């Protein structure tokens, strides 16, 4: 049993729903109680889809449990087939139905449904959403893809994009563009917009492009083994990675690595002098492993940031992330515990967070700007406009997205110079954010009011008035002058200043921080 406040991933059957909803002509019959239908709103509200997900739930009730839940499943399966006439059906159980062990796959097999029925075994009490999507797509491919003649010209399949994916819709277009420039044709894109019939044609391609290993690696491995199709390992997010991707595809397909760089603006935007202020910005990265690995390279090599922490919530992909963290000289945070992530970010006191929807909340709480780089994401991360992460345009989009939460170049200096101006003060936030400026909370933001633990740079709300005031050697007291001075430091560097000063004071064995301590620490850490 594990206490959870917020979750990064849903249960595995939601992963299966993401595959089913992305496809056309496929129907998912899910043995589940009525409350599980909430999952529809993920697609209709958060992603704004204009169709119900192709999912029929059995919605059994308590009174059915002693009776014939298997019969309810069979009836639901038959009704769903008769009503929707899909090309193929996937069947499975949600967490509750898993416990009553009706074996939906076995039941459906006895029913003589005249289309392929693909059973899913998704262990709800061990695995999570990404496992569910990867396994479901693999089972569909395994059931339907068959060896066949390759297309005469070089073609590839594009594997991995799903419903409810972070920018999957637009990433597909970018990847198609990169392939088009090399003269490589697209055989099938799947699961996004693919039909079961399309899946049967996967074998005609010469290779597979895996866009999101989290959702398609098992299927790609299966296709490599059974159909001899190699698959790409590079994820084209960022300028460097996109160059590498083009080189990898060209090598696999035996074509020239042709590129059209006319729309790539990121390198000049990053080199231009206005971007100098980005130098050494301390960023914390958290999300799914694939996006974090890509973002770390961009942050360091293409933005000139300093990566001060990174981690992922999907343990399945922890290994490459660990390797990368080593290169950065960091200890990676592999966890799906939201509170642990919040603590790590508070401890690292970065100037910006690159994370998921959850880290946006953490950033809001700690007063740290945040840009979203990975699922899970909310409704505002499904924009109407074209906004990919992959390819050349993706690199441009990422540049814009990441600098948007920050206070920009000269404004940063002005804030530092005239920090007591009643209108133009740091707590108003970046001026281009209008009324929606992130208001720093008392976490990364304002100076401490009372003696506080340095061991626990914890941002706990005062939860009890009864608790004893902290005492002892690890208590650091900010003297009034120093505290006042700290408040004058713009909020986006205040967390760092406070942290550095306290560290300096602790190293010196001081228990009081005076104005001098503050400036000695500043000189000590000057770079």
């Amino acid at each position, binding site marked *: *049993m*594990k*206490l*959870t*406040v*917020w*979750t990064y991933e*849903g*249960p595995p*059957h*939601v992963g299966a729903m993401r595959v089913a909803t992305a496809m056309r002509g496929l129907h998912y019959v899910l043995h589940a*109680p*009525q*409350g*599980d*239908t*909430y*999952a*529809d*709103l*993920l697609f*209709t*509200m958060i992603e*704004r*889809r*204009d*169709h*119900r997900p192709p999912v*029929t*739930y*059995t*919605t*059994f*009730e*308590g009174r*059915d*449990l002693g009776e014939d839940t298997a019969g309810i499943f069979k009836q*639901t399966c038959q*009704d769903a087939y008769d*009503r929707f006439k899909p090309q193929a059906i996937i069947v499975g159980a*949600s*967490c*509750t139905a898993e*416990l*009553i062990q009706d074996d939906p796959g076995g039941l459906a097999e006895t029913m003589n449904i005249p289309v392929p029925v693909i059973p899913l075994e998704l*262990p*709800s*009490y*061990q695995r*999570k959403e990404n496992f569910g999507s990867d396994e479901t797509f693999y089972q569909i491919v395994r059931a339907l893809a068959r060896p066949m003649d390759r297309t005469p010209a070089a073609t590839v399949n594009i594997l991995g994009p799903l419903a409810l994916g972070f920018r999957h819709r637009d990433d597909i277009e970018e990847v198609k563009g990169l392939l088009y420039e090399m003269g490589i044709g697209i055989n099938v894109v799947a699961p996004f917009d693919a039909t079961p019939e399309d899946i049967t044609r996967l074998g005609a391609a010469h290779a597979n492009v895996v866009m999101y290993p989290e959702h398609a690696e098992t299927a790609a491995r299966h296709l490599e083994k059974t159909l001899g199709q190699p698959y790409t390992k590079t994820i084209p997010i960022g300028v460097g990675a996109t160059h590498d991707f083009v080189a990898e595809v060209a090598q696999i397909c035996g074509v020239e690595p042709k590129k059209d760089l006319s729309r790539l603006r990121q390198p000049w935007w990053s080199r231009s002098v206005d971007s100098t202020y980005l130098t050494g910005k301390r960023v914390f990265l958290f999300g799914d492993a694939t996006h974090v690995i890509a973002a770390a390279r961009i942050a360091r090599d293409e933005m000139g940031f300093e990566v001060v922490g990174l981690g992922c919530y999907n343990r399945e992909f922890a290994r490459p992330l660990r390797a990368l963290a080593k290169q950065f000289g960091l200890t990676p945070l592999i966890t799906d515990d939201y*509170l642990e992530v919040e603590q790590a970010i508070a401890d690292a006191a970065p100037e910006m967070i690159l994370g998921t929807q959850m880290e946006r*909340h953490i950033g*809001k*709480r700690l007063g740290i700007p945040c840009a979203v780089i990975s699922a899970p994401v*909310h409704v505002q991360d499904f924009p109407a406009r074209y906004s990919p992460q992959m390819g050349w345009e993706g690199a441009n989009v990422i540049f814009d997205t990441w600098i948007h939460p920050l206070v920009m170049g000269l404004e940063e200096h002005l804030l530092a110079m005239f920090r007591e101006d009643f209108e133009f003060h740091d707590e108003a936030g970046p001026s281009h954010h209008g009324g929606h400026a992130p208001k720093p909370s008392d976490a990364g933001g304002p100076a401490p009011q009372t003696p506080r633990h340095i061991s626990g740079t914890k941002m706990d*709300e005062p*939860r*009890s008035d*009864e*608790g004893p005031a902290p005492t002892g050697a690890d208590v650091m007291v900010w003297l009034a002058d120093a505290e006042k001075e700290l408040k004058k430091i713009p909020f986006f560097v205040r967390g760092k200043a406070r942290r550095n000063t306290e560290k300096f004071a602790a190293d010196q064995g001081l228990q009081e921080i005076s104005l001098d301590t503050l400036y000695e620490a500043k000189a000590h850490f000057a770079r």
Partner: protein
Amino acid sequence: MNTPTPVPSGTCRDAPILKERGQREVFCGLTGIIWLHRKMQDAFFLVVGSRTCAHLLQSAAGVMIFAEPRFGTAILEETDLAGMADAHEELDREVARLLSRRPDIKQLFLVGSCPSEVIKLDLARAAERLTQIHAPHVRVLNYSGSGIETTFTQGEDACLASMVPVLPTTDQRELMLVGALPDVVEDQAVSLLTQMGIGPIRVLPAPRSAEAPGIGPNTVFACLQPFLGDTAAALTRRGARMIQAPFPFGEEGTTLWLRAIAEEFGVDEDTFDRVTAAPRARARKAVANASEALRGKSIFFMPDSQLEIPLARFLTRECGMEAIEIGQPYIHKGLVGPDLDLIPAGPTISEGQDVDRQLDRVRAARPDLTICGLGLANPLEAEGLTTKWAIELVFTPVHFYEQAGDLAGLFSRPIRRRSLLNLEAAE
């Protein structure tokens, strides 16, 4: 007083009910935690369930709550199910950890889920044991919010019902208002009744456990929401008596609800009129303005919040709409009977759901407005139908006089929006 006389024959109370079984497109009772944990400020809701439960709570919240919420999920894992770990020991450990992190918590609700019920995890026993461990600082209660036993707002009913047995006993003649309403609305209700000289007035649930109302044979209570059947039964078992009335939606509903209580407490007509005249007039005016776009329009209720019948009464009688079908997850005539009495026969009254068949009826009827859950709204809009999501009705202050106009506005806004937007290319 101009009490509207119920139509003598042919009201919806006696109309045949279309009972359906099939796929239901509704939330489970866990959803109620989203508003209950805000209402009860020293309570924590610990769902004992699966990852799905945790995912539901954060998805249904729509926007997530930025502070650390006063709810969480103890997620059952393989070892709990396989009997490799004693689930009760695990639960004790998680609760101890939670309470040490949150010393401000005085009431802990262990909330049962589909998985915990299927594996027959005895949360009542756990609650008793944990109460003993953590008394007197924390009281631990339990209820079921599972999807196999409860739908959406029924979770609040189960939660409040679980609190009734531990309410202190009193012989005082008191009025208890039952239901978790936004503070602003609750204050208005209390103020109106107080002005009539009615009191003392207590509310269940109280914002803090120390303020929990007493109960006894001299308690009378009125429900604020039409989904509190089990709570009403539990209160009755403890000797309290229910005041039946239509629910306080709109000017008419509010007046009838207040009048029923006023009669119980022997308030004279002059006093009643003096207190209600001004807000009644305001409510009528606000409803008249806000319901302009609704007059003569047809409406179809998919079953969702359990508010469907009282709202249909409001929309048909005060806003001039015509109901085609009024679906409710379940119908408890002991609660919604007075509302059914006021709706003239005509609309289909349905209970339960077979969502695909019901959608066929929606498509055939093409109502001007369909009230439905979040999973159905955009798909129906894409088919050219105008919708209103039901969940907003439980997240927005809509009860009593001062909100009557807002309530009508919730329904008229989608219709006004459709007429405002001009998204086609100019010819």
